């Protein structure tokens, strides 16, 4: 098998124990791991396959045996839109199951220009070290003076030490104090900007005594049809920008645009205007990763208040959602300070915020006492207190810091007292809580079925949120259209075969409140979205801009196949690509089933309130029939009643060889 264009062609395996490295040709590596690039692409697909081959039983995630895989894909570092992404995977320190996260800025592309598609980090270093990948050379350097340093200082020091010839030449993926102190939800951070969030890989890096990975790449990525690629990419970008009504807002205001879709917060502009008073935006446009037509980072400068003078590149969705919803931080300056602080400390915003939020609930109910909290009265809305707790958690300081550093699942088990029943996690991982009865059913279903535990990013179906009845007067008006118009247009533009559309949405051409409210068709739509996410995570490209964002009319599988064919010279189609997504998702499920035994019994919310009738709003008294929804989902997936992929499904996806040893059910639900 020769290496197709679009791949850099080498694999780097690093043995931290001996501080040694090995460079393998990509085709030989593929052969050892039985990876057919046309079946697994790269990124998440390759990570899944590598972890599948390497782990047959559960391991302690903080054991040196756990390996970190950084995988780019054929899309990465080419001239295709949003090509600055890669995936980083390992065994999750929180759940013990599969974990991976997408990250960007310029580390992934630099890695590919250095000539590597995949980097695998094995073992545990005897002393704190960092690695420098200088094109094809690999250097191991002492990092004891960097230990204890926060994110941006680490980046600066590493770049200075390695003798950067011009700024941005060397890219650094580093961990911060939270990773060093083995806080269970710490992501590494690429140049203090983009983190593979939710992956917990920072904790694993900390357990390996690995402070940072730096890379300098000066090479090129070959292409099958460069001019064709440029033309297809140009068309894709143009149609994305013209078709998607929210992109224009997004490019100007960043993630705050999504307030309308994600929050019960009207996007009337009031907040944005107020922000301009309190904060300055020295750039007129957002800032983004490589080749991004709709960048999401906002360069912010706080002008008023306590944090006057603070500068930060961010303003991100997760922070915004957790700050306003779960932490009650209202002031803009405090919100940005919190975001910057968590990035500096290396804490996952969703996990930390949900853990804190849970701790407040426990405190209010008397499940946590002043003795447990080191004398602090926990509450929402107090930014200073929350930041203080974040620091204690990152350093595992005091009783409270140590308790919350393990996350909701472990903390609730440790304190007991009924706190398990209000702990917002699935399979041990926190998720940003949305009540499926009041809000999005598909969103919550995604948290249940996600291969990396309670998490919404492997699903991310915003259809219900976008066309939610309460939202009709807010952001749809903002873009100057009626709900029916937007719904109709979006339905037309949705990159999905007509037959499937009919199955999911029925014949209705208008916003169907009944459809929004009922679970009908949603399992099918969820399956489609999950496959799509697995697909673009393997290419690897970004979620923002894909057909899972905004009104779900972004870049879809049709465009993906068109551009991928220009990069690699293959002849893939819509169906083949979606099947790749399906294959990857199924193997992730099987992986978790094999090492952790996760099946139907684990697809549950720990928080029992999810199963109780809604307490308020127009859906008061409503209950979601979770078991029925899940059973329908299993049936569509081709899984058994217990939520395990069946033999027939495995055969259909060409996974037969790999899964022979497993005793899989025959009967589809």
């Amino acid at each position, binding site marked *: 098998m020769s290496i197709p264009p679009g791949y850099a062609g080498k694999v780097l395996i690093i043995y931290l124990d001996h501080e040694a490295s090995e460079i393998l040709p990509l085709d030989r590596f593929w052969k050892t791991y039985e990876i057919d690039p046309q079946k697994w692409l790269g990124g998440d697909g390759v990570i899944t396959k590598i972890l599948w081959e390497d782990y047959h039983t559960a391991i302690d995630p903080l054991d040196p045996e756990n390996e970190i895989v950084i995988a780019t894909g054929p899309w990465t570092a080419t001239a295709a839109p949003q090509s600055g992404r890669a995936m980083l995977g390992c065994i999750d320190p929180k759940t013990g199951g599969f974990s991976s996260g997408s990250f960007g800025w310029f580390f992934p592309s630099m890695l590919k220009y250095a000539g590597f598609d995949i980097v695998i980090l094995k073992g545990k270093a005897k002393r704190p070290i960092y690695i420098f990948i200088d094109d094809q050379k690999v250097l191991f350097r002492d990092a004891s003076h960097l230990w204890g340093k926060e994110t941006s200082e680490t980046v600066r020091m590493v770049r200075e030490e390695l003798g950067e010839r011009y700024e941005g030449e060397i890219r650094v993926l580093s961990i911060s104090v939270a990773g060093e102190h083995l806080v269970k939800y710490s992501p590494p951070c690429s140049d203090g900007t983009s983190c593979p969030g939710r992956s917990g890989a920072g904790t694993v890096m900390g357990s390996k005594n690995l402070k940072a990975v730096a890379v300098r790449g000066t090479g090129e990525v070959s292409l099958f049809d460069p001019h064709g690629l440029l033309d297809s990419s140009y068309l894709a970008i143009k149609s994305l920008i013209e078709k998607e009504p929210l992109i224009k807002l997004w490019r100007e205001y960043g993630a705050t645009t999504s307030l309308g879709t994600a929050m019960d917060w009207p996007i009337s502009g009031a907040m944005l205007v107020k922000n301009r008073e309190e904060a300055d935006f020295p*750039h007129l446009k957002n800032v983004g990763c490589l080749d*991004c037509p709709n960048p999401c980072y906002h360069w912010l400068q706080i002008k008023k208040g306590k944090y006057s*003078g603070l500068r930060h590149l961010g303003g991100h969705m997760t922070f915004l959602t957790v700050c306003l919803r779960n932490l009650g931080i209202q002031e803009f300056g405090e919100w940005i300070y919190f975001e910057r602080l968590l990035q500096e400390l290396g804490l996952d915003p969703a996990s930390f915020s949900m853990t804190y939020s849970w701790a407040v609930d426990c405190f209010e109910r008397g499940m946590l006492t002043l003795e447990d909290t080191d004398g602090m009265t926990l509450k929402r809305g107090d930014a200073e207190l929350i930041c203080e707790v974040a620091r204690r958690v990152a350093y595992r300081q005091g009783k409270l810091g140590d308790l919350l550093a393990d996350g909701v699942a472990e903390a609730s088990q440790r304190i007991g007292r009924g706190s398990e029943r209000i702990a917002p996690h699935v399979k041990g991982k926190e998720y940003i809580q949305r009540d499926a009865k009041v809000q999005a059913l598909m969103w919550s279903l995604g948290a249940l079925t996600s291969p990396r535990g309670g998490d919404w990013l492997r699903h991310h179906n915003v259809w219900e949120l976008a066309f939610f009845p309460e939202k009709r007067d807010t952001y749809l008006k903002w873009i100057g259209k009626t709900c029916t118009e937007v719904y109709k247009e979006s339905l037309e533009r949705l990159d999905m075969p007509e037959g499937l559309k009919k199955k999911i949405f029925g014949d209705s051409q208008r916003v169907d409140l009944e459809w929004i409210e009922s679970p009908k068709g949603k399992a099918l739509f969820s399956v489609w979205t999950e496959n799509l996410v697995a697909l673009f995570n393997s290419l690897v490209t970004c979620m923002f801009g894909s057909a899972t964002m905004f009104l779900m009319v972004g870049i879809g599988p049709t465009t993906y196949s068109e551009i991928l064919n220009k990069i690699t010279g293959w002849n893939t189609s819509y169906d083949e690509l979606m099947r790749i997504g399906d294959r990857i998702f199924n193997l992730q499920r099987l992986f978790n089933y094999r090492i952790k035994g996760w099946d139907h019994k684990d697809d549950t919310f720990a928080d029992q309130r999810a199963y109780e009738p809604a307490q308020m709003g127009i859906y008061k008294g409503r209950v979601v029939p979770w078991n029925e929804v899940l059973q329908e989902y299993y049936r569509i997936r081709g899984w058994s009643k217990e939520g395990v992929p069946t033999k027939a499904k495995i055969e259909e996806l060409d996974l037969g060889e790999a899964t022979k040893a497993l005793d899989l059910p025959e009967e589809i639900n």
Partner: protein
Amino acid sequence: MAEEKVIVFDPLYCSGCMYCMTACSTYHQGSTSLSKSRIHIVRHEGHAIANMMEEDHLIFDLITCQQCDQPYCQYLCPALAIEKDPMTGALKVNHDRCIGCRMCMVGCPFGAILYDSNRKQVLKCELCGGEPQCVRFCISGALKFLPKDLSHLVQRDRFGREKIRHHFKKVEGESR
């Protein structure tokens, strides 16, 4: 001769995505890279290296051939390999004549000419025959392709509008 146009850059609109660079290398080299691009975005990423309350900036700037009227690269070339394209006014390297001495690189005050050791060629912006790919792919609108005698308009327009806004703010403040 057609009207001579040049690439104009507005740093405030730049999103730092470097699509100009990947498009450039893809179009000319047939493979994507940042190091072999004829256009270069210089970056200062203050956000990534400054401590929390330290003031720093995030700045992008452009380095590419300015298509000078008095081109030092052309003067210094001993092989007379740099020629002016009569259609676009771009200074082009005639690779049949080029001897690879890299004297043009010495001459360029901006460092806009680079050397590709794999292909044994000097690379410089030749305006893609009048349709620059970098400008085509600049979605944020930071790069524009304008006639030489209008190339100041972008900066002037922005500066002027800012000045007016500043003035209005002052007047508003006084009237309150």
